[in-house]
């Protein structure tokens, strides 16, 4: 699974720490998600999408798509 969190986060001028605080996780979790090492749960994916004012579809795509 690929994600575009970095791009959306930078567009919104948010730091990893700020985004982490908004969605209620640690900065390490945001780093892991951005690097593609950790796949977030559906509720967290929705929280991220809401925080970055986008949709889950825009943030995450399956590699074979």
């Amino acid at each position, binding site marked *: 699974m690929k994600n575009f969190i970095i791009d959306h986060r930078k567009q919104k001028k948010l730091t990893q720490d700020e985004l982490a605080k908004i969605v*209620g*996780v*640690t900065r*390490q*979790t945001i780093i892991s998600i951005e690097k593609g090492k*950790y796949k977030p*749960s559906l509720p967290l994916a929705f929280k991220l999408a809401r925080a970055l004012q986008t949709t889950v579809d825009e943030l995450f795509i399956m590699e074979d798509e």
Partner: protein
Amino acid sequence: MTTSDKIIRLTFWITNASLVLMALLYWSNFSDITPTWLMVLTFVILVAILLAFSWMRRKWGIKSFKGIYWTDDERDIDITMKVHSELMKSSLYILYGLLFILMILSNQNLSAEQVSITIFVYVWLSLFFENVQYYWLWNKYKK
């Protein structure tokens, strides 16, 4: 370093210290002069460790998930579940090992004291191994 990292490190060292103290207590049973001071000291240190741990938990606001501590967020829960799964496997192997050792010991005509020492050493080493494994796996999955 997240709160969960801190508590994992603290737990690792507290468990190590507790294991050393337990080994000292056990050893004191076999010494000719019963070192009462050692038993008192060990008891005081164990109580101090438990109190310090409880205070740290409140100070760091450690969350828990289904009775498992040090989970700051869902990724920590995920890591904890993976670590616990590995530890359950290890525990099963350790139990099989204990069965095997008991089978061997039962044919050796050993005294109760010798059997007790062997089992103590085996359990002590198992607990030490699992403690190291927990710390190592947590750091491995956290990366």
